[in-house]
C-alpha cells in the first residue's frame, strides 16, 4: 500500500474529501469549495461532462439501433438482470448511466432491486426530479409513535437549507399552504391539462382534504441570473431528461453543483477512484483520509484531508464504513451502535388506480411535460379526521392524465380494446389520432425503519476488484401492506368521485428497492448508542467524517427524498467549515 510521506503526501492532501459526485456529492463539493476549502471529489465511475457526455440526448425515434430504443432481451438478461427490473429505466438511450449487474454483484437474501449508476453525476442525471420538503410531522413521528429513534433535528432547523437548495437548483411548483407539505421557493408551476383540471375540481369538491397540486419538480420555468450564469436554461418540455439535458433544464450535479464548484478553482474531481475505506488515526482519534483503488490501474492510493464527506449513496457509504475496520472500529467505522447497515427504507409504490375520461375528446396538449400532478399525504396528519387505525404514517400520489399514442395498439402492451382493428388504411388513420384520455394515480408510501431490514458486508463474495460485496435482507411488513390496501381504495374513490369511467384499482406489487430511494443505513440520532450520525451528520464516534446521503435518514416520510438529502448536505457542509475554523475537526 502506498503510504505516502513528505512531498507526495502533500500532493495528495486537501482540505476536504467528498466521496461520490451524485446529488449530495455535488452539493458537498459546491458548498465546501465556495466556502474556501480545497476539495477533492472521488468518483468510482468515469467522467460525465455536462453537454459533452450525453450521447443520446438528441436522438430522434428513427435514429435508434433497436426498436423504440429497447435493448435486446439477450443483452438485458446477460448484463442488466437487476437494472431491467424497473421496466422503464434501462434502454438504449440510458444504459451508459446504469451499472452492469454482471460486473457489480450483490447477494439477495431477499429480493432487492438496487438500481444505480456509477459515473460523475451518479443518479442526479437520471432521477425523477420530484422535490418535496419533509414536514414537521415527518421529523416528529418517530418520537411520537415510539418507532426507531427520534430525529435529532426538527423541520425549523432544516427549513433555511431547503430555501437555499431550492433557490440554487430551481424548483417549479405551486405553493399550497399545507402544514404537512411545506411550501418552498418556487418558480412558476407547470400547467395541468384539461382532464387534470377537471379532476382537481371534482375530486376536491368531494374530498377537500385531498389536495391536488402540480408536481414540484427540479426544472427551470423562470431561471434566475445565477442559474443562467451557470449555463442552464428553461425546461424545453422534451421529456427526455433521463438521457441528460442539453439545456440544463433540470438540476443535476453535472449541470449545477459541480459546475459551481469548478468555478471556485478549489475543486479537483478524480473519476475512476473506488474509495475502499476510511483511514483512521488512533492517536489523533480522527480520520485522516481515504484509501482508493484506481479502477483503471488497479493501484491503491491514499488521499488526505481534514474532513471527509461520504456522499456515495446510502448503500455504498455504508459499504465503505463497514469495510473500514480497525482496532478502534472492529465492526465497521463508527458502528459502536451496531446500527450501520440497518433500518433500510425505501418508498413502496406500484399501487393506485386508473380510469378513462370520456370528456374532452376534442382537446389535446402540446409539449411533453416532464412532470405530473401530486396529491400530498392526507392520512394520519395528527387530527381525528385523518387518523387511520390500520396503519401508521401515510402516502402521496403522483399521477396524470394523457391521451395514449399510436403504441396503444401494440399487442405486447395489451392492445386497447377500444382501439382500431384490422389492417390497412382505416387502422393507420385511427392510430394517427390520439386515443381516448386516461388518468392514473400511483402511490408513494412511507416504509417504517425496521432494525432487521439490513444490508451486511459479504467478504466471501467479491467483485471484479476483489472487494467484498453487499448482502440484502429487506422486506415490507404489515404496516406497509395495510397502507397499500388504502392506497388502492382511496385512489379509486377519487377517480370515481370525478366521474371517470372504468375505474380500476391495481396493486402491481412492489419489491424493496423499486422506489430507488434506499436510505437509513447510518441513521441520524441523539444517542451514539442507537444511531450512527449526530444532528449535523457527523459520525458520533469520529467527528470529522460526515455522511449526508440517504444513509443519514432516520425516517423516510412519503415524499421523494433527494431535496432533503441536498438540504442536509448543505447544512452539514456549513457546519464542517465552521467547526474546522474553530479547530474542532
Amino acid at each position, binding site marked *: 500500500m502506498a503510504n505516502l510521506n513528505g512531498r507526495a503526501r502533500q500532493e495528495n492532501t486537501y482540505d476536504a474529501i467528498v466521496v461520490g459526485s451524485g446529488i449530495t456529492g455535488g452539493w458537498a463539493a459546491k458548498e465546501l469549495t465556495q466556502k474556501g476549502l480545497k476539495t477533492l471529489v472521488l468518483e468510482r465511475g468515469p467522467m460525465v461532462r455536462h453537454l459533452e457526455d450525453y450521447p443520446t440526448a438528441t436522438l430522434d*425515434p428513427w435514429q435508434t439501433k433497436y426498436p423504440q430504443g429497447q435493448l435486446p432481451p439477450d443483452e438485458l438478461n446477460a448484463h442488466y438482470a437487476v437494472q431491467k427490473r424497473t421496466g422503464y429505466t434501462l434502454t438504449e438511450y440510458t444504459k451508459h448511466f446504469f451499472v452492469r449487474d454482471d460486473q457489480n454483484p450483490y447477494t439477495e437474501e431477499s429480493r432487492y432491486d438496487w438500481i444505480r449508476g456509477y459515473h460523475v453525476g451518479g443518479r442526479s442525471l437520471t432521477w425523477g426530479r420530484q422535490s418535496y420538503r419533509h414536514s414537521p410531522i415527518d421529523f416528529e413521528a418517530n418520537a411520537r409513535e415510539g418507532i426507531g429513534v427520534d430525529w435529532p433535528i426538527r423541520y425549523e432547523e432544516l427549513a433555511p437549507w431547503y430555501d437555499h437548495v431550492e433557490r440554487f437548483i430551481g424548483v417549479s411548483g405551486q405553493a399550497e399552504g399545507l402544514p404537512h407539505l411545506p411550501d418552498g421557493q418556487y418558480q412558476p408551476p407547470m400547467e395541468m391539462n*384539461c382532464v387534470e383540471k377537471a379532476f382537481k375540481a371534482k375530486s376536491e369538491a368531494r374530498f377537500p382534504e385531498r389536495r391536488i397540486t402540480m408536481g414540484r419538480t427540479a426544472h427551470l420555468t423562470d431561471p434566475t441570473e445565477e442559474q443562467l450564469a451557470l449555463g442552464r436554461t428553461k425546461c424545453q418540455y422534451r421529456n427526455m431528461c433521463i438521457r441528460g439535458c442539453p439545456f440544463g433544464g433540470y438540476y443535476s450535479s453535472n449541470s449545477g453543483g459541480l459546475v459551481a464548484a469548478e468555478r471556485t478553482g478549489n475543486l479537483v474531481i478524480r473519476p475512476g477512484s473506488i474509495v475502499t475505506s476510511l483511514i483512521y488515526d488512533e492517536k489523533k482519534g480522527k480520520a485522516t483520509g481515504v484509501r482508493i483503488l484506481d479502477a483503471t490501474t488497479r493501484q491503491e492510493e491514499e488521499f488526505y484531508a481534514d474532513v471527509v464527506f461520504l456522499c456515495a449513496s446510502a448503500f455504498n457509504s455504508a459499504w465503505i464504513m463497514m469495510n473500514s475496520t480497525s482496532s478502534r472500529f472492529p465492526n465497521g467505522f463508527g458502528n459502536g451502535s451496531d446500527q450501520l447497515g440497518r433500518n433500510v427504507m425505501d418508498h413502496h409504490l406500484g399501487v393506485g388506480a386508473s380510469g378513462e375520461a370520456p370528456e374532452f375528446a376534442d382537446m389535446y396538449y*402540446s409539449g411533453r411535460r416532464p412532470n405530473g400532478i401530486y396529491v400530498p399525504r392526507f392520512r394520519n396528519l395528527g387530527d381525528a379526521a385523518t387518523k387511520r387505525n390500520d396503519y401508521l404514517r401515510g402516502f402521496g400520489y403522483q399521477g396524470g392524465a394523457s391521451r395514449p399514442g399510436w403504441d396503444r395498439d401494440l399487442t405486447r402492451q395489451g392492445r386497447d380494446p377500444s382501439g382500431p382493428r384490422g389492417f390497412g388504411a382505416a387502422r393507420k388513420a385511427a392510430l394517427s389520432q390520439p386515443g381516448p384520455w386516461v388518468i392514473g394515480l400511483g402511490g408513494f408510501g412511507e416504509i417504517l425503519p425496521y432494525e432487521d431490514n439490513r444490508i451486511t458486508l459479504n467478504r466471501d463474495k467479491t467483485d471484479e476488484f476483489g472487494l467484498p460485496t453487499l448482502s440484502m435482507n429487506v422486506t415490507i411488513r404489515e404496516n406497509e401492506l395495510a397502507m397499500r390496501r388504502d392506497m388502492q381504495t382511496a385512489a379509486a374513490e377519487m377517480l370515481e368521485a370525478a366521474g371517470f369511467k372504468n375505474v380500476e384499482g391495481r396493486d402491481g406489487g412492489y419489491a424493496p428497492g423499486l422506489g430507488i430511494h434506499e436510505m437509513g443505513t447510518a441513521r441520524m440520532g441523539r444517542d451514539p448508542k442507537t444511531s450512527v450520525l449526530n444532528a449535523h451528520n457527523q459520525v458520533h464516534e469520529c467527528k470529522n467524517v460526515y455522511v449526508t446521503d440517504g444513509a443519514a435518514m432516520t425516517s423516510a416520510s412519503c415524499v421523494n427524498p433527494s431535496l432533503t438529502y441536498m438540504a442536509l448536505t448543505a447544512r452539514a457542509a456549513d457546519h464542517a467549515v465552521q467547526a474546522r475554523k474553530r479547530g474542532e475537526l
Partner: protein
Amino acid sequence: MLLSRRDAIRGLTFTFGAAATGFAGRAMAAEPALAWTPTALTPDQARLVDVVAELIIPRTDTPGAREAGVPQFIDRALADYFDKAQAERLRAGLVRMDVDARAAHGDVFVALTPEQQVELLAGYDREASSTQGQTAGGGHFFPLLEDLVTVGYFTSEPGATVALRYDPVPGAYHGCVPLAELGRGWATR
C-alpha cells in the same frame, strides 16, 4: 386499461378487403425487385415482409410502410434485436405463410391477390387472438410481425413526422389545445 389481447379482440369486426387496403388486382409482380439487401432475411422473405408490411400500413395520403423503410427495420430487428426464440418464431411464420398460400391458392404469398393475402392475415390474427395468453413463453408469430410493422412505421421519420406530429424541442407545454389545431397524434410523449 391494459386488458389481454384476447379480451381486446373478442367480438370485434375486421375491416378487411381491397377497399380497405387500397389495392386492386394482383398485389405485386411475381418477382418484385428488392431495392435493398437484407442481412437476416432471405431475399424471398424480404419480399414477403415487404408485401405484408404494406398491407398492414399502406400508402394513403401519407407514406406507407414500404416508403418508411419498415421491411429494412424488420430485417435489422431480426439481425440485432430478437433473441433466438423470437427470431425462430418469426422465421417459422414466414415459412408458414407461403405454405398456407400454396395450399389455399397454389402460389406463394406475394403472388396472391390482395383479397387472398388479407384473408390469410385475418386468419392469423384470429388464430393469434384465440391462443394469446394460453401458451407460456411461446406465442403466435403474427402479433410479433404486426407489432414490428407498427413500431417500425410510427418510429420512422415519415411515420413520426408525416403520419404523426413530432417536435424534438417543444419549448413549452400547453395543457388544453383543441385537437383540431394539431390535427394528428404526437409521435412521442
